[in-house]
């Protein structure tokens, strides 16, 4: 069976050659900087570093990969975008190449939406499963196996994937959220400058903001505290908790900075408050 699948995969590989260069019209300038191997190692997908007309950076790749179940392989083509921190942001289908489920039924708009929410969930249960574990063989305990301590159940996996496209969703999730993240981050840091820093800090994705924050030097907190306050106002609990621990103590010796924090104190979650409490002197309802 494995040989058969490999032959099929190879066939798909050959047939797809003609699709190279059929990207949708671009209004951004890009150049290849990385290579992302497909899950089956058949394809090596170039990853492009781009700047759009607004001067914003991002990465994308036209992913080609084969997706096989027990009996059948199909080629999946998708244009996938990442931000500067290697976090998946969105995808586009390639012209005339819709994704399909249950063999060859095209995805509905709901299916695309579901796929988007699955791919954007970097902690998805799919990240914890090998392909062999996707199907629960023990049907008798189907719903009883809800078990967060060891992993997921077929039920949980089912709710995490596009119905009828289990292996496609699984494969795309790993391509969008796997090793690519580290590769992109490394590349971003190699080009790190003020513009990139600003874009990271202005992201609406908390892990991306934190990637930006991790690369700030201490001076920034003193000189650009207004920007830090803006981030705190943005109010993401993960970012705020990180900042609460990260802001140098000396920043709070400046009265103006303490006042800024006190003004937004009540918007903080309890975890953030628990760290910042020691810097606050006013009689706030702590």
């Amino acid at each position: 069976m494995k040989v058969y699948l490999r032959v099929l995969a190879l066939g798909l590989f050959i047939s797809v050659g003609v699709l190279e260069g059929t990207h949708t019209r671009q209004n951004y300038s890009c150049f290849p900087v990385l290579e992302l191997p497909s899950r089956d190692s058949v394809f090596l997908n170039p990853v492009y570093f781009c700047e759009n007309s607004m001067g914003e950076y991002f990465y994308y790749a036209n992913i080609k990969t084969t997706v096989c179940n027990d009996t059948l392989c199909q080629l999946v083509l998708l244009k996938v975008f990442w931000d500067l921190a290697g976090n998946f942001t969105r995808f586009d289908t390639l012209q005339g190449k819709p994704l399909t489920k249950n063999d060859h039924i095209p995805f509905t708009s709901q299916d695309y939406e579901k796929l988007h929410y699955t791919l954007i969930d970097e902690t998805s249960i799919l990240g914890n499963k090998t392909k062999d574990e996707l199907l629960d063989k023990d049907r008798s305990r189907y719903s009883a196996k809800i078990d967060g301590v060891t992993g997921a159940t077929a039920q949980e996996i089912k709710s995490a994937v596009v119905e009828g496209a289990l292996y496609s969703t699984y494969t795309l999730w790993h391509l969008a959220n796997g090793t690519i993240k580290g590769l992109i981050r490394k590349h971003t840091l190699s080009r790190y400058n003020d513009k990139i820093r600003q874009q990271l800090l202005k992201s609406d994705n908390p892990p991306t903001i934190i990637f930006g924050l991790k690369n700030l030097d201490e001076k920034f907190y003193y000189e650009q505290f207004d920007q830090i306050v803006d981030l705190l106002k943005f109010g993401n609990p993960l970012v705020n908790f990180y900042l609460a621990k990260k802001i140098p103590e000396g920043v709070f010796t400046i009265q103006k900075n303490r006042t800024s924090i006190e003004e937004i104190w009540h918007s903080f979650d309890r975890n953030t408050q628990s760290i910042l409490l020691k810097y606050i002197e006013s009689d706030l309802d702590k």
Partner: protein
Amino acid sequence: MAYNTNDILKWIMRILFLAIIIPYFFIGANDRNDALLIEAESFIDKGGWVVDPQFVEQMGSPYLLAHGLGRPVQDAQTSFQIYKKGEYNIWVRTIDWAPGNWEAPGRFQLKIDNKIFPQILGTRKGWDWQYVGQAKLKKGVHQIALADLTGFDGRCDAIYLSTNEEPPPSDPEVLADWRKQVLQLPEAPEQLEQFDLIITGGGIAGCAAAIAAAEQGLNVALIHDRPVLGGNASGEIRVHTLGIYGHFRRILKMLDTEHYPNGSPEAHEEDIKRLSNIKKYDNIRLYLNWRAYDAHAEQDIIQYVDAKHTSTGERIRFFAPLFIDCTGDGWIGYWAGAKYMYGRESVDKYGESWEKHGEIWSPEKEDNFIMGASVLWRSIELDTVSNFPEVLWAMEVVGDYAAENGEWQWEFSRNDLHQVDDAEQIRDHMLKAIFGSFYNEKQKPGNERLALEWVSYLIGKRESRRLIGDHIYTFNDIRNNVKFPDSVVVEEREVDVHYQQNLLDPGKPDFLSEALFYQVDRYYVPYRSLYSKNIGNLLMAGRCFSCSHIGLGGPRVMRTTGQMGAAVGYAASLCKKYNILPREVYQKYLEEYMRLVLSSDQYVHNP
């Protein structure tokens, strides 16, 4: 009022029983005999109330809890002796566990000789004495009862009656001394026991340790603060056991559970199995419902552990040359002065990063945002309509979140809440989460027959204090599959570290968690992570073993902690054989020790 024969017999038995116990137990009178302290947990007939000893170290005593899932529980009652007639002022030590602009959830009233006092109790914020009223009491035996009004976890620690108008002290430290004085407790327990080995904590680790040591001929005391063994796996908490058996399949098969859903009542069958297996060992002396409250060390050697019965208040001092801490919270080590860790270490401290999950895996700067505690629960569909009362006091926690069952994700942790020191607050937060979410679920059409079937009142902790050993087990030991000369525990399970869902999505309730799984190959825990670095005769097994926050993520499940238990049980046997301390097992007798560990499954027990 008509009484049948059974009622009369019951009362006679109570009075006879009281005649025996009053001089000794948890009802204390002062020298002038015009004041009396009655510990609620010592009530003879607890009715539908349950003894909750989980938070003794924080609020001072086990207490009675009216855990009726929204239906008032039966009265708890007992008798007491008045030696001097008079007009007594009465106080009850209680708490409103969900204070706010609503009626307190855990309301109850007090009855004396069937006269009910109008004062509604359980309505004051923070543990303290609440005034009940006055009663004229004649010399002789009287009846007292707690009448629950809500079924929503009203709580009563103690009742104080005095002809004096001065209430008992509020300050916890002063109160503790006052209690000893009123109850006329001697400074030290008068009952002394001597064993080869004292194991505190009857979870899977403690039970495995007891079996391993007992099979090697040690006289073992197993002290556990609940009526059933198993800890998080017991029918009281109901987490199924996970992990592999390692070298101890035979022992762990006597103790573990099937892979039923968490919260399943099937856990009760496993309790029966576990208890009957432990009872096969004549040299394991089981102290159920005994809670350790102190451990005393001299020159870094523990001399004894003191424990108290959770209802009667009897105390025993346990002496032994060796002690195993299986309390989960590392209490024995903590009291004895063992070095310990708490919190999430900074990612650089042990080099435990996983870039993919960054801060939610291991933070750049250390904090106390460790894995949380769970309270499991379930509901069932009845044949008839079942009502569930409004729970206004829960709604600020749940919002519009609705659910009919709770699984492992029902977990609460917050950076400012300590999993040991703030455990009652954590448990209560989970109760609000459960009752509120169930109330919302009940409002949905079609759920008229849905009823709460079971809600635990015990918190199942994942992480708390970790005692420091000669080796601190970390993520790197796991991901590098480090094999040690003293690898006594083997595991294959993923490293599984939890975070609160609302950290990533503020729209999520704060009582739900998510797991991050790091897939690994086989990994090993060394014996050196299972004894204290600075307390010479202290071994430990369970979540309080020597590890980092992330290092705990893999071996924290109960078959794995059971392996630790068995391993330290065998180590204790060599300590006895050669009259040595745990560290010397590694230093001088490692070969013999590993032979013992590796041959565990070949051992045949002939009771």
